[in-house]
């Protein structure tokens, strides 16, 4: 089993005729994800990906015609908020936003509105979801992970791929990998995902990959200490990052003394999370935690 996405996922790609959207839609389809529809305003009625996937003008039309229950967004940053709101308004319960660069004021409004609609947003500015062997919703390369019992949750992209790949080389598989994204205001937090992993019967251990900025890791530590029975291995990137500088991700910044990697590591260690000093240690720590 897995969390969030599996064989029941009926996926809609918003922005399917764009360069990124079409490329990744093909990858998702080839992986075996049930990709049922795409949207691209003005191109409704066309078929893409060798005539396999119908395109609609609006999300509401696509949902009505295909029964899509999950959307993944590949539109430019200036349209990202609109795309997320449209998906929520069409009643989709799960919305995954890959787009990087959405203004933070947009995200605050979107998050507030989606909460009222009880829609779950994953991202933005993240690689999406991968339940190996079942479904790929986003841009995580499918071939770098195999099915298994380790749940992975991360704020980063390629650093997460590193970890998935290192696990695969040790023949260790993954239940679901969730990229919650590198923005300061996002849809799904570490705690949300930890809670799902704790309840998922097929996840036995969890890997948490954090980075500087905000306090999501500290709150995750409290949750782990109070509520988790499954062992957690962690890594926090950015111990060497200078304060006041944004390290690539909009949310990766130490401000006014808060968001420091050292504080996050301390909090996670106190919650009995096994912390890796460098990413390559993670598979060893998982073996040790079993």
């Amino acid at each position, binding site marked *: 089993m897995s969390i969030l996405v599996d064989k029941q996922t009926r996926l809609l790609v918003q922005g399917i005729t764009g360069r990124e959207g079409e490329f*990744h839609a093909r*990858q998702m389809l080839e992986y075996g994800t049930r990709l049922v529809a795409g949207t691209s305003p003005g191109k409704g009625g066309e078929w893409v990906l060798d005539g396999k996937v119908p395109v609609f003008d609006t999300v509401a039309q696509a949902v009505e015609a295909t029964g899509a229950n999950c959307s993944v967004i590949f539109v430019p*940053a*200036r349209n990202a908020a609109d795309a997320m709101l449209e998906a929520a308004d069409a009643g989709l319960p799960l919305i995954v936003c890959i787009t990087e660069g*959405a*203004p*933070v*004021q*947009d*995200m*605050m*409004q979107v*998050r*507030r*509105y989606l909460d009222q609609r009880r829609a779950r947003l994953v991202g933005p500015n993240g690689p999406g979801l991968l339940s190996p062997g079942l479904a790929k919703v986003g*841009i*995580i*390369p499918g*071939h*770098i992970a195999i099915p298994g019992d380790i749940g992975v949750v*991360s*704020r*980063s*992209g*390629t*650093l*997460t*791929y*590193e970890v998935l*790949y290192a696990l695969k080389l040790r023949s260790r598989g993954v239940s679901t990998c969730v990229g919650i994204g*590198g923005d*300061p*205001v996002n849809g799904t937090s570490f705690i949300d995902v930890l809670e799902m992993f704790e309840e998922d019967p097929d996840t036995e251990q969890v890997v948490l*990959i954090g*980075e*500087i900025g*905000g*306090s999501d890791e500290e709150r995750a530590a409290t949750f782990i200490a109070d509520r988790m029975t499954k062992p957690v291995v962690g*890594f926090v*990137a*950015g*111990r*060497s*990052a*200078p304060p006041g*500088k*944004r*390290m*690539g*991700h*909009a*949310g*990766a910044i130490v401000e*006014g*003394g808060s968001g420091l*990697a050292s504080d996050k590591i301390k909090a996670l260690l106190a919650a009995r999370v096994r912390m890796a*000093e*460098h*990413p*390559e240690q993670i598979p060893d720590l998982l073996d040790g935690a079993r």
Partner: protein
Amino acid sequence: MKLHEYQSKQLFAQEGIPIPRGRVAMTAAEARAIAEELGGRAVVKSQVLVGGRGKAGGIRLVNSPEAAEDAATQILGIQIKGLPVRKLLVDEAVGIESEIYLGLTNDRQARCPVLIASAEGGVEIEEVARREPGKIVRLPIDPLLGLREYQARYLAAAIELPREHWRDFIHIASALYRVFQRVDATLAEINPLVVTKDHRLLALDGKMVIDDNALFRHTDIAEMRDLDEDAPAEREARKYGLSYVHLDGSIGCMVNGAGLAMATMDVIELCGGKPANFLDVGGGAGAEKVAAALQLILGEPEVRVVLLNIFGGITRCDEVARGVLSAMPEVRPKVPFVVRLVGTNEEEGRKLLARAKLTSATSLMDAARKAVAAAQGEPLA
């Protein structure tokens, strides 16, 4: 992106927040002329994008146009925290009864803007937070509703502002929220907001930070950028869509992905070295982008070795290797390279780079150890 005091105050004034009379001067003679217009008594304020201007001698109260000219000459010659003073704001001097703090920022945890006020104005709010946290009042604002009048009134009462000023305070708080929203600010601060001796509220100093991700819809604001805010290499990087941060070490880093780039820096430090930069080349790093990235790294005089750490996912390692190879004739590096390629088509990528006599590494740890050794002057195997 940070705005100067004078830029912030102009934006405040456009929304109806009262600010002191005054103008920007680029020369001492201009400062003198402005002081003359203002009647002689004036404040000459350096316009640099760092705090602590007063302590550094960057703000002077003067009593005559001549004194304004002298102060301007001095201030235009100094550097404040490494930044040269190129502009001055010459404002009327105001009789001050009391100073308060009023600011708006985004609360990441609550995912909403938060209006902050304190009866302790004129000092950095972080300092008040440390010294007397009880003197700071914070009010979360629903991003879908905006700031409501009763909330501003609540704040005025909470900081014990005399009732005669409530109307003006509510007007200013509402205007501050409007400008914060309109220009996609992540910080809008009036510090101090003063009560003058003649019982007016006046925004004496202002500070704004704009969300870089929103600049696409504020071209007028984007043009206000002060190029001194970033190191030269960081400005150059922005042109190529690269994310770059200058650091003080000797190991140049080129990595795809922000998280992996940070992790690479961490592992370098773990091995006893110091990274020279943070650099995310992003996905699908083609030859042109790779060349630009290498130029940036090698343009830093302290760099003694370059560490390339690429995880091939959708991006293929052989593609990146070709990018590096095609960039080499143009870049002509004089320092050694340590390369770690892992993921899609890693074998092919390694073979390509082997021809270029670059040192390859099998793991991130291995790469960092080799780079640290090279930075310390040891020859690479």
